[in-house]
């Protein structure tokens, strides 16, 4: 049944592309079908009595789709929901653009679904590449600003990252002697098999971290992300920032999970480096986000910044030899929540631009007075993304922070003899904190940073006196409200009841 999640959007693409079926309607029908199918699959997959795997082959290539890995149900949900919302809330400039936007959205959706559900590592990689192609093309053709440069830069960054990643994946598969994640998990858990000597594992994990890290915009490899999101057409930005970017984290967590306790030997060597880099994501890119003057760039950078928390969860998971279930599920929650919230933010940013013809923060003001629904929805998404309780991001972020302190206990107080009790307490604390815990303490400052940029944006765009460009703006149409509310409702649902994703 799972294979239909792939076939339906591709069929729809063919219908639109070759038989000139109406773009938006066909795409919406296809997205609706995958939404229903996906929900069924997730609900069935959650029932323990059903066989969760569904073996299929495609032209002799093993194409086993599975929902057995811990993260893939929520990723599947994210994909189908964001696809539907992106297509529903889309404002294409012309019929032609509408058709190509629909096709690329569906292709990205199909590729992401394939990547998240594949059991075979090579298929997992290939599906992701399939999903990347429309992104480049759409930025190049329909982007904002200097779109050609941005498209090329994105292509080169992601292409190189994919090559590095492929090398790492091949080495990992050869080391483990299998290309199936499920078999890898079984081998690691039952026989304690490891993918090679410590030196080899260092190389493999380095390649994987650089490859996946670039795809997820880890700190020094992040400069492609924000301009690409800012430039891409709204549905593409939603699909890439919301869904496709999670591929890298999904891969890291899946392999760490598959290797079980051995993940510490594989990734542990790079953990300290990773901790420093993710602080770069949270603090450095956070500062960069504050400095942005355009809404779309700000959202793009904020998405890069939030990736830091997910790497934090990964570091905590690796440091605990894969026993930190809270870190895994916290990351699962945050990936889903971040996907929903950033997609919603990009969707609303698109609708703001459609109304005011600008995304410069200084040019807009007082929009909420004219379009209160838009203000409410943007506020909801913004508050979700800065981690307000009752919304899904909070559940994710808070569990990740907590998970970093599970299993940590303060050592005995070192009497530093500094004479001053505060210095004593600080030094004993610093001495007692492990690298992961220390990193959390710094990363928490991200809470303040994210509040600063998000509230500033909301303040500029929606509050204050009404600016000239916001004078005569149409209200939200029914489909626009529906698409954003779908994402908002899920954010609220998972915020109140995060146990649903486990």
């Amino acid at each position, binding site marked *: 049944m799972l294979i239909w999640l792939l076939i339906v959007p591709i069929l729809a693409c063919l219908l639109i592309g070759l038989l000139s079926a109406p773009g938006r309607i066909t795409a919406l029908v296809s997205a609706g079908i995958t939404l229903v199918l996906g929900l069924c699959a997730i609900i069935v997959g959650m029932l323990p009595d059903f066989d969760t795997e569904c073996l299929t082959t495609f032209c002799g290539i093993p194409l086993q789709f599975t929902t057995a890995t811990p993260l893939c149900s929520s990723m599947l949900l994210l994909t189908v929901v964001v696809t539907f919302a992106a297509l529903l809330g889309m404002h294409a400039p012309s019929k032609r653009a509408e058709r190509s936007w629909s096709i690329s959205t569906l292709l990205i959706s199909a590729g992401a679904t394939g990547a998240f559900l594949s059991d075979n590592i090579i298929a997992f990689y290939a599906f992701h590449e399939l999903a990347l192609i429309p992104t480049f093309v759409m930025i190049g053709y329909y982007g904002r600003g200097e779109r050609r440069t941005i498209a090329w830069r994105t292509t080169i960054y992601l292409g190189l990252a994919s090559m590095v990643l492929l090398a790492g994946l091949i080495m990992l598969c050869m080391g483990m002697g299998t290309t199936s994640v499920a078999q890898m998990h079984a081998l690691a858990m039952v026989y304690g098999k490891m993918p090679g000597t410590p030196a080899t594992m260092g190389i493999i994990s380095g390649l994987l971290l650089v490859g996946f890290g670039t795809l997820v915009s880890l700190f020094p490899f992040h400069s492609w992300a924000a301009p690409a999101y800012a430039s891409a057409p709204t549905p593409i930005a939603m699909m890439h920032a919301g869904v496709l970017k999670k591929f890298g984290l999904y891969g890291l967590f899946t392999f760490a999970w598959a290797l079980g306790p051995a993940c510490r030997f594989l990734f542990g060597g790079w953990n300290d480096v990773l901790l420093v880099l993710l602080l770069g994501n949270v603090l450095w890119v956070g*500062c*960069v986000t504050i400095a942005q003057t355009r809404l779309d760039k700000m959202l793009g950078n904020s998405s890069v910044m939030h990736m830091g928390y997910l790497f934090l969860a990964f570091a905590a998971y690796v440091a605990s030899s894969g026993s930190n279930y809270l870190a895994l599920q916290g990351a699962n929650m945050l990936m889903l929540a971040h996907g929903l919230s950033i997609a919603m933010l990009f969707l609303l940013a698109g609708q703001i631009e459609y109304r005011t013809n600008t995304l410069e923060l200084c040019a807009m003001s007082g929009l909420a007075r004219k379009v*209160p629904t838009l203000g409410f929805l943007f506020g909801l998404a913004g508050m979700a993304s800065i981690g307000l309780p009752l919304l899904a991001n*909070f*559940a994710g972020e808070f569990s990740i922070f907590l998970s970093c302190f599970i299993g940590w206990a303060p050592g005995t107080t070192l009497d530093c003899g500094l004479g001053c009790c505060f210095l*004593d307490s600080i030094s004993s*604390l610093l001495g007692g904190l492990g690298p992961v815990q220390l990193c959390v303490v710094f990363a928490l400052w991200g809470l303040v940073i994210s509040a600063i940029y998000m509230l500033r944006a909301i303040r500029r765009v929606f*509050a204050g006196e*009404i600016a000239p460009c916001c004078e005569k703006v149409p209200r939200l149409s029914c489909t626009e409200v529906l698409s954003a509310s779908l994402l908002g409702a899920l954010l609220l649902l998972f915020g109140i009841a995060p146990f649903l994703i486990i």
Partner: protein
Amino acid sequence: MLQNLPWLFLVLPLVVAAVDWLFLQRCPRTAACCSITSAAVCFILCLAYLCGMQTGSPSVYEWFPLPSHSLTLGLLMDALSMKMMLVVTGIGLLVHIFSTGYMRGDTSNHSRYFAGLSIFMFSMSCIVLADGLLFTFVGWELVGFSSYILIGHWYDRTSAADAAKKAFITNRVGDFGFLIGILLTLGVFGTLSFSDMAGQQIDPAQSGVLTAVVLCLFCGAVGKSAQFPLHVWLPDAMEGPTPVSALIHAATMVAAGVYMLVRLQVSMGTDAFTPSACVVICTVGAITALLAALMATQQDDIKRVLAYSTLSQLGYMVMAAGMLSGEAAMFHLYTHAWFKALLFLAAGAVIVRCHHEQDIWRMGGLRRRMPLTTLCFLLGTCALVAVPGFSGFFSKEAILTAAWESSIPLFVIGALVAVLTTFYMVRLCLVAFCFTARTESAERAQEADSAMLIPLLILGVMALISGYGFMADTLVPFAGFRAHDFEFGVPFLTGLLALIVGGGLAWFVYGRRQKKLDTDPLASCIFSRALRRRLYIDSFYDKVLIGGIQQWGAAIAHCVDDGVIRRLAGHGTALFVAWCGKLLSKIQCGSLRVYVLVSALGLIVAMILFAFTIIH
């Protein structure tokens, strides 16, 4: 089923808020009714519990269940929390009712306003009833959010929108420390639940870490209770509607920090509060009390005077909590909630009737036009300046006694703050209510209507009697509290002296020169100017922290990110590759003869190598 009745405290306001906001945008009256009903139900429920209703322990909400380390949300229904709930729901209900009068004639969206109040009731109940730091933190963030939307209720006013943003961000700074504290607590105690913490023995060897834990948690209180140096948001928060200031920024939310400290002292035990941590807490409280009282003496806005007074009273409470005298802190919190809510609501009535005039120098003579409101305001003032017999007198007495017993410097500061409190409150009353009206709007003021007067009168009665044993013994949010009979000792005499000195000074400055007074006679002195400018703390933050870090720091980060990482590293790599290509393309000179020569040389080298490897 019945055992889960306490969850109604949370579920009801939350559902009402959602319904108000999402479905009742067009019918503000219905929205107001829903909110008031939910507040009333909570209040009645709370009374029922206080009267001894038993429903068994409420079940725990499995928020994020895991094989190990589940995150659960539970309710703690002890004396501390239930009595605190009475303060919250009681004042909450009165403020809801007052709001209907206050917002009449206002053109903004009332549904959103009442939804905000309901969210606040929900989140404050989370903090009060939480059985664990996780739930506390949930409520902690949400009260910040509700305060954000209520301060920014009139968001098209630039000042309100800025104040809302400032409040939220400043609170987030405090929450940064609070969250670290929560995480460290998990490490030290192995649990976040208050009831599990209570039974634990504390290893004396861990005092250093414990100090850090307590101080980090205290950071949260510094943010939420607006203690120095994060006090700057509270005066600005007065941009919100006045009932909101009364409920959130005077009576309940800002007291949450104090409540949390006392809750920690009860659950972790006072041993966990190491002497060094206590010193810091007391000092911060004392500094806040003193600075805020000083600044209050020179404010012209009636709400700002009250806001600084709130700051200074919160400083008192934090000081008491730091002296490990949770009893005194909670007693003062409880009396302060009633009389400060009264003061704010009375000020709100005055503001509405003076057509949104807030400058006290443009009021005057209100006692003749609004006699009942003036009476209520006077009752509140008497309680605040601790006139013997009023509620504030007993609680301030308790704090001063605790200070007298623990440290003389703190006692001196406490006494000084008492003098200043009397000074600025008498100044406020004299200027705003006595003499003759200075402007037309004050001239035409009328008595408030019944929706506003009834809550005022109820609060007035509470301000008068809530300090006496028959009320306090059952209602002060502290287990086994006994209102002590005041003793004729140093603290009592000091309090009395402070009253006389402060009142006398204010009368000397503002009372004598009756009619001519249109501006503050002290305004020209340098010290007063500094106080008016809030001792330059706000402008320091604006220039140095916000201007410096937010703009310069962010700009530098942006430039470096764009310049170094993107251009230098990104484009640099591209240029390097291109340069290498250029260099290597030099070999391709295009001359056939050179190619032949090179290949011939290569052949020769290969032959030599070949020959030598064969021979040797």
